[in-house]
C-alpha cells in the first residue's frame, strides 16, 4: 500500500508540485485567541456551498423547468424517486442554513473589524457572496412553482421594479415579460443553475485566495497570540464543525422534510399568512409598516432606497471606517452594526410573532 502511495506521489510530484502545496498548508498559521471561534463560520459556509452544488446537480436529473411540469416534477422527486425527499430536503434546508451562517460570518467579521486593510477586498467579495446567495435563495424559491413562491416572486420583482431609473428594466429582465410567467420560471432556472453558480465559484475562489494569501485577521488590540497550523490542526477543528452541521441537517431533513405546497394559480387570491423565506422577512415587515406616502414619495420607494443605501454602506464599510484602518477602536461603527443586527432580528421576529402588524 505504502509503495503504491509512494509511486503515486512520485508520479504526481513533478506534475502538480504537491510538496509546495503541502509546505504552504503546514507553514500557514492561524492565530488562536478568545475570538478565534468565529473563524470557523467561513469554513462552514464553504462546506454548505459544496452540499448545495452536489444536491443541486442531483435534483437536475428529475426537475423540469416549465409551468406545466415544474410543480409535478418536484412532487415526483418528493414522492416517487428513491431518496428524492432527502436530496431535496437537504438542498432546501442547507440553503436556508447557509444564508444564516453567512449572516453570522458577516456580522462576526464586521464586529471584529476584519475588513481593515489589507482585507478590504476580502470583505467586498464576502458581501458580494451574500448577495449572490440571496439571489440563489430568491431564484430557487420559484422553481417548485407553488402558491407561496409565485406570489413571493411577484412581490420581489415588484420591489426591484420600484428602484428609480433602472427599476422597470430590471423587473422586465427578471420576469422575461410583464408578468410572472413561464418565461420567469425559465429565467430563474437559468440564473439558479448556470449564471449564479458561475459567479459564485469565481468569487468564492477569489475570497478563499485572499484569505489564504493574507491570513486570518486578528481583532484590534490583540497583540502576539498563540498560533496553530492550518493543516492539520485548524482543518481538523473545521471538520468537526462540518460534522456537527451535517448531523443537524440530517436530523432536520428526516423530521421536517421540505414541503412542496399547492401548485401556483396566477388568477387565485394570495393565500392568507403569506410570507417570504425567513431571510427576506425583515424587508417584508418593513414594507408592511411603511406608510403609503411619505411627503409626496411612495413609501415603498423610500423603503427600497433605504435598503439599497444600507447595503451600499455595508459593502463600503472598509473605506468608511478610517479609525479601524489605523488599528484604533471604532465604537461608532460597532454601534451601527449592533443597530443593523437588532433591526434585522426584531423585524424578523415581528414577522412571526405579530403577523397582523399594520393591519
Amino acid at each position, binding site marked *: 500500500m505504502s509503495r503504491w502511495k509512494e509511486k503515486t506521489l512520485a508520479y504526481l510530484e513533478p506534475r502538480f508540485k504537491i510538496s509546495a502545496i503541502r509546505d504552504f498548508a503546514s507553514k500557514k498559521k492561524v492565530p488562536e485567541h478568545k475570538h478565534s471561534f468565529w473563524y470557523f463560520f467561513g469554513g462552514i459556509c464553504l462546506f454548505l456551498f459544496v452540499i448545495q452544488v452536489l444536491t443541486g446537480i442531483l435534483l437536475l436529473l428529475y426537475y423540469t423547468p416549465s409551468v406545466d411540469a415544474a410543480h409535478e416534477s418536484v412532487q415526483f422527486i418528493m414522492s416517487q424517486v428513491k431518496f428524492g425527499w432527502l436530496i431535496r430536503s437537504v438542498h432546501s434546508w442547507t440553503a436556508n442554513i447557509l444564508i444564516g451562517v453567512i449572516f453570522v460570518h458577516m456580522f462576526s467579521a464586521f464586529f471584529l473589524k476584519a475588513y481593515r486593510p489589507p482585507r478590504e477586498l476580502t470583505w467586498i467579495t464576502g458581501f458580494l457572496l451574500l448577495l449572490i446567495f440571496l439571489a440563489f435563495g430568491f431564484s430557487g424559491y420559484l422553481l417548485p412553482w407553488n402558491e407561496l413562491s409565485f*406570489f413571493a416572486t*411577484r*412581490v420581489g420583482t*415588484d*420591489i426591484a421594479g420600484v428602484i428609480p431609473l433602472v427599476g422597470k428594466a430590471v423587473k*422586465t*429582465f427578471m*420576469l*422575461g*415579460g*410583464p*408578468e410572472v410567467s413561464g*418565461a420567469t420560471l425559465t429565467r430563474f432556472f437559468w440564473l439558479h443553475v448556470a449564471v449564479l453558480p458561475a459567479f459564485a465559484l469565481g468569487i468564492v475562489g477569489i475570497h478563499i485566495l485572499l484569505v489564504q494569501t493574507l491570513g486570518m485577521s486578528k481583532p484590534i488590540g490583540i497583540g502576539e497570540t498563540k498560533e496553530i497550523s492550518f493543516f492539520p490542526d485548524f482543518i481538523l477543528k473545521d471538520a468537526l464543525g462540518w460534522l456537527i452541521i451535517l448531523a443537524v441537517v440530517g436530523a432536520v431533513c428526516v423530521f421536517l422534510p421540505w414541503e412542496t405546497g399547492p401548485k401556483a394559480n*396566477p*388568477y*387565485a*387570491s*394570495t*393565500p*392568507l*399568512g*403569506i410570507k417570504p423565506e425567513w431571510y427576506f422577512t425583515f424587508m*417584508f415587515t418593513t*414594507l*408592511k409598516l*411603511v*406608510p*403609503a*406616502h411619505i411627503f409626496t414619495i*411612495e*413609501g*415603498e420607494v423610500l423603503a427600497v432606497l433605504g435598503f439599497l443605501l444600507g447595503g451600499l454602506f455595508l459593502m463600503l464599510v472598509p473605506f468608511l471606517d478610517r479609525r479601524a484602518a489605523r488599528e484604533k477602536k471604532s465604537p461608532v461603527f460597532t454601534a451601527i452594526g449592533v443597530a443593523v443586527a437588532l433591526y434585522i432580528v426584531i423585524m424578523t421576529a415581528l414577522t412571526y410573532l405579530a403577523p*397582523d*402588524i*399594520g*393591519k
Partner: protein
Amino acid sequence: MNRRAFVNLFLGGSILGTVVSFLYPVIRYLIPPGQAEAVVKRTLAAKIGELAPNSARFFRFGSTAAVLVNTADGQLRAFSAVCTHLTCTVNYESDTGTLFCPCHNGRFDLSGNVLSGPPPRPLEAYEVEISGDDIYVSKKA
C-alpha cells in the same frame, strides 16, 4: 502623435470595438422581446345566481386577476384584484365586507378605495353589466 502611440490607440480601439460588438448582441439577447398581447376589454365573469350576497368570485381578465363582488345588499362590483402596493392578489373578507391583501395587510373598501395599510392607490374599478344570464365585466372607458 508618434507611431507607437498611434499603434496603441489603433489596437486598443480595435479591442474595444471587438468587445462591444460581442457584448451588444448578448445584451440584446438577454432583453425579452415584447410580445403583442390581445387586449381584453370585456370578459364573462359569472352567471346570474352563481354568486351569493356577501361573496366574491375571482376570474381571469386578460393576463391578470380580477374580482367580482356581490355585496351584502346585492350590488355587483368588479375590480382589478391586483393590489396597488406590490401586486399580490387581494382576498374578499366577508365578515368585514372589504378586500384584503395578505402580503402587506392592505385593505380596500367596496369602491376600491384604500382603507388601511401601505397601498398607494385605489384598486382599478371595472364596469359590470348583465346580459341575459351572464355577468360581464369591462374596463371603464
